[in-house]
Every structure is written in C-alpha cells, then in structure tokens.
C-alpha cells in the first residue's frame, strides 16, 4: 500500500513539475533545515526548493515524497506539513526526481496539550474564518448582537465580548459543546454566516479545548508577537506555477512559531497570482508581479512573486540616459520582456509639452523640432519647458487639487484661494525645494494675506483631517482606516493615528475684525491661525490624551513656546524619512507614466509594494541629492529613454501594464483637454468672475480654485477637491463627456466661431493640402497619412462654395479622434 501511494506521489510529482521538465533539478533544499517541535499543536510547514540547471529556484513542496524514519514520532502530509505524534527524534527524507534532502526532527512536550493563549492561538481562528471581517461580526455594529474587533485587532475586547456578553452562553466551560460559539460555527444552531468550522477540524478542536480548559485569556507573562516573516520573500515563478509559503510569528521571548495555517492571505493582483488559505500561491497565465500579503494579529508581511514571460530570454540593447533606465531595464530583463522602440520626435514633443506644460504644441514648433539636427534637442526641450510659465501653472493646478484649494462658491474665500494658488505657482516656478514647500504649508501661521499657505488649514479643520491629508499628500500613506481600527493592510494602529493627530493639538483659529466695520460683514473678517501654548488630542481608543509620535519613531515633546507642527515637519522632511521623498517621487512618476511605481500612488504600504523598488529608491535619492528640486526630478524622468519609448507594443511587452516597457497612453485630463479644444478651434474662453483684460487667466490650467462653473470641465472629470486623493480626478471614458464633445453647443460654437480656426483656414490663401497637414499636426502631433489627406481634400472639394463648413467638419472629426484626445 505504501508503495502504491509513493508511486502515485511520484506520478503527481511528474505532473506538477512539468514546467520544470525543460530544465532538470540539480539540487534540493528544505526549509527549515531542521525542526524542533514543542507540543501537539506545533505542526509546521516544510518548503522544498529545487535548484534547476538554469539556476532558477522552484517550489517542489507539493511534488515531493516524504518519509519519516520513525513513523511513530511524526508524520508528514502531502502538502509538506509535519505533525508530531510522541516525544522523540526522527529524520524526514524528502525525495523528488531521484534527488533527496533530509530534515532532522525532535518532538517534545507531547504528553499533554500546552496551555492555550487567547490572543495568539484562539482569536486568530476567528479572523482566519472571517468571523471578525468587516461584513460580519467585525463591523462597528456587530452582527445579531455579537461584535468582534475588526480582524481581531483588539483581542481583549473580543475576549470580553465572548465571555461576558449574552449571559455567558457563548462559551460554556462546564459543557464546552454547548457553547454558542461552537454550536453556531459548526451549523448545529442556526447561524446567519453558515457553517464555518468542521467538528473534526483543527480549529474546532483548539477552540473547544480552550473552552474546556476554562477559556483562559493567557498569562500576562505570555509572549506577544513582535513581527511575522514569510519564507521565501521573493521568487521567480513560471506562469501556471505554484509556491508554498511558510509564515512565522516572532515572539517577545525570542521564540519563533510556524503560523502558516493560522495566517490570512491576500494577493494584490489576482490576474497574476492567487493564494489559498493554506498559503499556497498559484501563478496565472500572465507576465508580471504580484504581492501576496500574510496577516496575523495586526502584523503583515509580503511574499513577492515575479512571473516572467515564458521562453528564451529576449536580448535588447538599451542606452541608459538617466538613473531611471538602469532600473527599468533591469526589471525587463528579470521579466524576460523587451522595451518598445524610441518614439518619434513628433510624438515626443507633443508628449512632453502635454505632460510638462499641459499645453498642445504649435504645429510650427512640432515641425521645427522634427527638423532640428541637434542630438541633444530632447534634453534641451525638457529644460526649456520647465522654465515656461505654463509648467508652473500646470503643476500648481495639480498641487491645488490635493492641497484642496477650494472656495466652495463662497465669495469671501476668494482672496485666500487666489493667494494660496499664487503662492503654490510661484513656489513651483522658482523651484522652491520640496522640503521647504511642504514645511511652509505644515507650519503656516497668521492670516491669508501674510501667509497664503494658512488657507490649507481652511479645509483641514480637525486633527483627523490633518492626519488624513498629511499622510496622503506628503507621506503617500492612507491612514484614515486607523482612526477607528487597526489598519487592515498595514502595521498602523489607532495609536499611530492619534500620535500624528497630536501634532495638530495646539492649532487655534481666531477671527479678527476690521475696526469700525459691523460684525456681520464677513468680508471684513479675517481668520488668523495661531499656535496655543498647550492643547491635546484625545486618542479615541484609550480616551487619554495622545502623545505626539510620528510614524515608526519615538514620542516627541514640545515646550509651551514651540510649535509641535515644526517638530513634525523636522521629522517629515529629514532625508532619512522613509516616506517623504518616495511619496513625491512616486506621485511625479505617475504624472508622466499614468501609473505609479506604487499604485495607487498614495497607498504606499508594505502590502502594496513598488513594482520596481530600486527605481523608486533611485528617484527618491535623485530628489535628495538635488536638494529636493522638483525640476531635477522631472528632468531625471523626462530625459530618460524609458519615458521616450513608443506606445506601440512589441511581441514581448504587449501584456505589460506595470513595468513601463512602453508608454501607456493617457486621456488628456479635463483642464488640458479644455485648453486643447480652445487651441485647436482657436476659440479661447473667458471664465466668469475673472477679469477680461489680456493678462487675465484664459486657460483652464490657470484657474486658481474649483469654483469656476464649467460643464465641460465637470464631464471631463475635473475633481471637486473633496479629498486629498488624485484618484478623485476621472480620466476614464464617460458617455456624458463623449456626448459633450460630439454634440454640445459649446464645442460646436467654438468650431464654427467667426474668426476661429475653421474660418481662418477657409480664408487662408495657402493650398488646402498645406492647411490640412498643419491642422493634423496641431491636433495629433503627426502629419496625415496619404489616405486621410485625400479624404480631407475630397471633403473640402465637395464644399468648394463653403470651405468653412468643410474645415469645421474636419476640425470636429480631429477633435473627437483618439489621436487628439490622448497623449501617446
């Protein structure tokens, strides 16, 4: 019988190891190399790794055959999990394809089960079985009168609810099997959540044993978890491959425990890899990278899987132009993909104009650039654009979104929003170092006339808003979850949240009256931000005043004449800060590439790792080395060869969505599109409420705040600055937008305006061919193909008597084409 089983296993091994067949296994290793097991519950996972002839490491845990020298001492199941049986020593032999590896094993304390500890062993079961998930008992109101802390982050709370509520019927040590927690979980009593446990399963046995032993919380001297780790941390896995993980809890007393079956798992990209409850990762049929999170008792760790393109490695030459290229090329080689060709000059000038200045280049500039023979012309263009006023306007618009420069249609706020916007724009034009820029906003004091950044605090009125906005804008972290519960995908706890909130505690506002003006007249009131000499913020979890504490750092204090925000700014803008430079580097990268290295850009957490960590580090370092010059950062990005790749894929990178092996086309954002339509039709817009002289802002990228009515901007996705998230901007397709571009009076009037583009071209004495070509270059950056040119000329010929009409139609068609609507 044993023999049949073994041969079956061998067959199974052949089946699953099939992808590896192309390259035989040359060596076998086991992790851990030896096992010291304590107590009947200690049943760890083995991870068996084979080394292939090509040097790659592959997982053979599920393909190996396991035998134990003394079957009385322990047994190993087919998934590589070891179960101790009695005290003793033994040796496990693992065999795959004729190769073997041995694991020595000792088992002790097997006489009687060890005492259970509620937070370490029992509560994680309720988390793993989703009892304490947000959709069930973990939600704030609980479920049918029974509430657990979300994902079991507060074991004491859960313990009290289990034992002290519902008149003690939930756990019943005198008759454990009558405990509601068990009868409901196995489906013996009606349970809205259905059957969660098997009466023969491990979870049931542990919970039952815990109840039978008097439902202890555990002793105060019991160790607690300090961190969790995963083996392996990173692997290159073939498509349709698998990788068993082993997860370990590290305790305060120095012990390490296998918790593979007790941890929870989640993949950040299920198109690339999925993960089972027992920590077995399955890669799918796509090339890319996935991060698999393991979570246990508020701690998280991540396994990263890289899934390369199958087949032989593709060779390519890639001339490195900036630090960016070193690390993107390295990633492509790792994934076995190749970058697209360099884009044409016409595509580049349109791309960089739109990305740096939010402005469509003139046709003559495009043609001149293409004709220019200077080999350094692309770099020179980047430099030139960064010195243009449009650069400052365009990026001021970007920062005004996330700094929420917002008037809310209140006239008396206009002075402040205009002043703050001007301050941002001038900072950007002068390339004010980013650390100073951020500090000036954080520690702003006084009134909006003297200190425009105080306007930021008009939207940041509470300690909670302060934490949410600061963390999202400057640290790239979404901390809002931790206001009410431990962050489910990060280590941040409520104490971390309120520790940040405490820096806001002394911010005060007062209203200053203009002498001699009636109180009611708000126009004559000024709001003044000042710093009190004392003040505290209550930690909602503990109810006590929260000590000032930045993320991952020691508590701080501030004397009565200090501004706590300055202390926070010191911490934040230090070159050693792990969040600050990376966050803005990632934000700027996403601006140019349409996707962050960490994506979403302001969700930089352990469990959402960068697709290319070295690249992100290099960008952050560029920023620090250049004294936080944002222009230097833009140059590093735009002068890279990576940024200058064509959008068209090749056979090797067609499926690439995250390694930047080609340029990902972007729909023009609302303001840029609005301005581009105005430029293409040569019909500028005046905005209501702004001066009409020639110096007045006449472009959407120049608007200082959100309170300028425009249906066009609304349907094309302009954010209302509700949140500090760039995700509020919508760049996707929408029916309302398409309808507006195709058939609105607004666009039609711009196209048909007397003196507008179509009118000018109709009257222009040049040949139609020349004029049509110029129109195409302006709209799309490229000359028309022969067919398109002929079609356009035919159309004009048809309307010989009313050329304006024909040109209007051509402008309309170009305006609605992807070549115009997208930056590519």
């Amino acid at each position, binding site marked *: 019988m044993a023999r049949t089983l073994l041969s079956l296993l061998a067959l199974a091994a052949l089946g699953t190891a099939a992808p590896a067949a192309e390259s035989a296994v040359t060596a076998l290793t086991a992790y851990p190399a030896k096992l010291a097991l304590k107590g009947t519950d200690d049943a760890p996972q083995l991870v068996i790794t084979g080394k292939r002839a090509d040097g790659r490491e592959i997982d053979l845990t599920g393909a190996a055959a396991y035998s134990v020298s003394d079957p009385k001492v322990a047994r190993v199941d087919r998934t590589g999990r070891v179960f101790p049986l009695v005290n003793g020593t033994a040796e496990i032999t693992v065999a795959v394809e004729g190769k073997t590896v041995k694991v020595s094993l000792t088992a002790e304390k097997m006489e009687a089960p060890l005492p259970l500890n509620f937070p370490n062993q029992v509560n994680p079961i309720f988390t793993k079985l989703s009892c304490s998930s947000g959709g069930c008992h973990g939600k*704030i109101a609980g479920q049918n009168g029974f509430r657990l802390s979300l994902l079991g982050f507060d074991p004491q709370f859960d313990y009290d609810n289990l034992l002290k509520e519902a008149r003690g019927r939930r756990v019943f040590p005198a008759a454990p099997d009558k405990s509601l927690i068990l009868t409901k979980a196995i489906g013996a009593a009606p349970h809205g959540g259905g059957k969660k446990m098997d009466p023969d399963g491990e979870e049931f046995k542990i919970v039952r044993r815990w109840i039978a032993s008097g439902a202890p919380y555990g002793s105060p001297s019991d160790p607690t978890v300090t961190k969790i780790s995963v083996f392996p941390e990173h692997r290159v896995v073939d498509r349709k491959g698998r990788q068993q993980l082993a997860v370990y809890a590290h305790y305060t007393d120095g012990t390490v425990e296998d918790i593979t079956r007790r941890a929870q798992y989640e993949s950040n990209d299920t198109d690339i890899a999925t993960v089972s409850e027992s920590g077995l990762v399955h890669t799918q049929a796509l090339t890319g990278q996935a991060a698999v999170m393991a979570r246990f008792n508020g701690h998280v760790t991540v396994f990263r899987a890289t899934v390369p393109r199958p087949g032989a490695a593709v060779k390519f030459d890639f001339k490195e132009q900036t630090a960016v290229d070193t690390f993107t090329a390295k990633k492509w080689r790792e994934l076995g993909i190749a970058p697209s060709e360099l884009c044409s000059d016409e595509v580049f000038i349109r791309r960089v104009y739109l990305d740096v200045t939010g402005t469509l280049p003139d046709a003559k500039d495009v043609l001149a650039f293409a004709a220019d023979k200077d080999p350094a012309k692309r770099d020179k263009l980047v430099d030139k654009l960064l010195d243009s006023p449009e650069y400052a306007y365009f990026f001021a618009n970007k920062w005004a979104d996330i700094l929420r420069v917002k008037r809310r249609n209140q006239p008396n706020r206009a002075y402040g929003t205009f002043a703050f916007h001007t301050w941002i724009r001038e900072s950007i034009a002068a390339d004010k170092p980013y650390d100073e820029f951020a500090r000036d906003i954080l520690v702003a004091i006084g009134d909006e006339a003297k200190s425009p950044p105080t306007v930021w605090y008009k939207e940041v009125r509470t300690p909670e808003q302060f934490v949410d906005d600061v963390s999202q804008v400057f640290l790239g972290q979404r901390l809002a979850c931790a206001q009410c519960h431990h962050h489910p995908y990060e280590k941040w706890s409520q104490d971390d949240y309120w520790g940040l909130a405490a820096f806001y505690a002394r911010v005060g506002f007062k209203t200053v009256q203009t002498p001699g003006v009636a109180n009611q007249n708000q126009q004559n009131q000024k709001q003044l931000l000042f710093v009190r000499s004392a003040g505290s913020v209550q930690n909602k979890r503990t109810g006590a005043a929260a000590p000032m504490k930045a993320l991952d750092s020691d508590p701080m204090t501030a004397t009565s004449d200090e501004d706590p925000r300055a202390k926070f700014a010191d911490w934040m803008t230090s070159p050693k800060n792990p969040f600050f430079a990376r966050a803005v580097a990632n934000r700027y990268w996403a601006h140019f590439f349409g996707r962050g290295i960490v994506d979403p850009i302001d969700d930089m957490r352990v469990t959402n790792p960068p697709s290319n960590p070295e690249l992100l580090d290099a960008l952050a370092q560029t920023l620090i080395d250049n004294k936080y010059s944002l222009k230097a950062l833009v140059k590093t990005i735009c002068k890279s060869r990576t940024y200058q790749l064509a959008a068209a894929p090749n056979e090797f990178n067609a499926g690439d969505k995250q390694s930047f092996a080609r340029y990902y086309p972007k729909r023009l954002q609302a303001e840029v599109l609005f301005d581009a339509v105005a430029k293409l039709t040569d019909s500028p817009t005046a905005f209501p409420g702004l001066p009409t002289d020639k110096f007045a802002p006449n472009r959407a990228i120049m608007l200082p705040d959100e309170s300028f*009515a425009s249906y066009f901007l609304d349907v094309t996705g302009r954010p209302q600055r509700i*949140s500090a998230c760039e995700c509020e901007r*919508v760049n996707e397709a929408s*029916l309302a937008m398409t309808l507006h571009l195709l*058939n609105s009076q607004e666009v039609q009037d711009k196209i048909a305006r007397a003196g507008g583009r179509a009118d000018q071209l109709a009257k222009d004495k040049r040949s139609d061919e020349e004029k049509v070509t110029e129109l195409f270059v302006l709209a799309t950056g490229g000359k028309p193909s022969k067919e398109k040119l002929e079609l356009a000329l035919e159309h004009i010929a048809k309307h010989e008597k009313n050329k304006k009409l024909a040109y209007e139609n051509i402008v309309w068609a170009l305006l609605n084409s992807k*070549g115009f*609507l997208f930056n590519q």
Partner: protein
Amino acid sequence: MLRFLGSAHKFCDGATRRDFLQIGAFGGALTLADVLRLNTAQAANKKQPTRSKKSAIMIYLPGGPSHMDMYDLKPDAPAEFRGEFKPIKTNVPGVEICEHFPLQAKMWDKLACVRSVVSVDEHSDSLVLTGYPDRVNRTADHPSFGSVVSKLRADDGGAVPPFVSLRGMSRGTEPGYLGIAHRPFTPGGQGNANLRLANGVTTDRLDARKNLLDKFDDTRREIDASGTMVGMDAYTEKAIEMVTAGVVRDALDVRKEDEKTRERYKGVEQFLTARRLIEAGVGCVTLSVGGWDTHGQNFKTLARQLPQVDRGIANLINDLHDRGMADDVVTVMWGEFGRTPKVNMNAGRDHWSPVMSALVAGGGLKMGQAVGASTAKGERPKDNPLSVPRVLSTIYRAIGIDPSLTFNNGAGRPMYVLDEREPVKELLG
C-alpha cells in the same frame, strides 16, 4: 456650478431645500476591467439572468409626510392623535388606509406598506436615497441609490442614461465617492441640451462628420491597455444614437402619450415621465412630489395632496402591471420622517422620526400586506423596528444588486453600499 432655481419648498427651519435643477453629469465610467469583472460576476450568477434588467423608481415626499394620515391610521386613538381622516378598507382583508387613497385601496394586492420604519430627524433626502443620514454623508459621501445603479449598469447598452433625477440635484442624488460620472441625468441640465442636435448641425452633417471621424480615428486601440479607448468608441456610438434616435428626448416628452393617458396623470405628470423613462431602459428614476412639512394645517394640506399622490401612484403601478413590468420595476415612496402623533395647536403635526411608513410596489416583492406596526397611538414601532437602510437593502435586492458590494472611497477604504443591510424578510415573501 450653474444653478437654476426650481420649485423651492420652504421648510420649517426657514431654509430652502436644494430642490433646484443643477447641471449634472450622467453616464458611467466603467473601465474595461470592471466590465469584464461584471460579466464574470453575471455569468456566475446564471440563476437570475434577467435580474440585471430590473429597475427602480424612488419617490420622495419632501418635508416628512404624516404616517398617521396616510398608511397607518389610528381610528381608536384619542381625538387629538387620530386626526380628521378616516380609514377605508382595501381589497386586502385586514389592511386599511386613508380615505383619501381610494384608488390604492382598490389595488392593495399590488401594493405593500411598511409601518414600522425608523428614521432620523433630518430635513434631507440623504437617508432615504443613500441609506446614510446627512450627518454621516457630510464627511463620508455615500452614493445615491441611482449612482450605484449607474456604476454597475453603465455598460448595459441602450441609448439611455442609467440614472435620471426628475427632481434635480440634492444630497440624496449625489454620487459621492463613486465620482461625478455617476451623477444623475437631470432634464433641464446641459446634458439634456446635448441630446438635441447642436444649432448649425443637421443629421446629414453629423453623418458626414462621423464618416470623417471613422477614417481619421485609426489609432491602434491595443496601445491602451486600460480600455479607455475602446470604452470611448462604445460611447461614441451610443452618443450618436442618443442624438439621432432621441430615445431619452422622447421619453421625457409626455405629449407622445395619448390624450386619455395624459388625462389620467393630469397634475402628476412626473409619474408618467418616470414610467416612460423606465420603459426606455433607465435603471433608476427619482422624483419628488408635494411639500409635507405640515407644522400647521396638516389636514388641509393633506386633503389637497393625498388624492394627487393617490392618482399618481395608482396609475403608475397599474400601468406597470398592464405592461407586464410589475416584477421588473420596484417602486418605493416615502419621506424623511413621520410626524408627531399628537396634533399640535395649529392643526399641524411636527417632526417625528421614531416611526414612519413607506409604500413599496413591484420588483417581485410580496404585495398585498402591511409589514410591521406602530403602537396604539402611532408613536413608535410596536415590534419589528425596521431602519431605512433595511428597507433600501430590500429595494437593492429586488433589482438584483447585492448591498454588501464594496467600492473604494477616496481614501482607498472599501465602503459597503449599505452598512446595515438585512432585508425586510416579510417583503421578500
């Protein structure tokens, strides 16, 4: 944002509610990935293939209608409580409603009410249209029922917007964290103007333009892995169809109905418009009727308004039945709260959130009943208190939307459509 003042209802707190027509966007912004996911989800849910075509009509009675004078009369209560109206029998034994609802009384087998709904004391449509009170939405920005429909159905095809608000924009019709793409289409807004050919453009000219566009627009779609380009192509076809075929324009034009039908809906044309929009394929229509903040002259006001509402709702529900759409369209009618059981010195009733009633019809829900009950004097639920979100949850389920779906808000936090979402089991039948 441009605002056109519509019929402004003055409420007791002196504020004019945002019952104005405000320019709203409409349409959806599903990514290709979303569409694929939805298709997969629908494929997995083969048991109820027709459910995705179901739609909802949300009727809001602004100001808070008096529960004791409509669906929950208390003829045995003391005079200062029971008020002036008498109950009448309906065609369902045991269920009685107000004498001013004679049409509904004849068809109660097609209607149901919930008499133990618990609300909050807020003059806002926020709770009944989003499932969350205004107090919560000021920071949490939960989306309107219709915006959720819009988000999930944007790609259902058909040249109609998924969400139409006949009452303009208000807190309850805002899409919140789902984004402005899921604002309702509001007749009178610019979205509506865009449905008519722009001045200076004829059908022939649009045709010629479209021909040029088809030839010019040859960007390789595969360079855009996000699916936005393909999405735009679909919208271009849809938009042209909306302009040339004019389905929405026609649906909004009640003059297309025959004289007799229009006579039936005289004075309550919004109900007819709602029916026409639903017939054209709209996923959710919301409208409001009357003003119900009756601190004074409660009975005088109601005697005037109740027969109107009666005619609107009866004709609407009967029409849906006649068209075989009763099970595919769920209708709910309610206000933000009930009114004080004890009549005040001005023959009025004041705000009363501990209990109110809701009228529900169709959607495959169990009709011909009155769910829950209030205490003898109509003061609070006698048993079975049912929160507004639980009723809303039932409505979501009736059109095949699981209210435990989550969408990420601006902070990246997954938000449930409804936090409290246990359905009213009596309505599920």
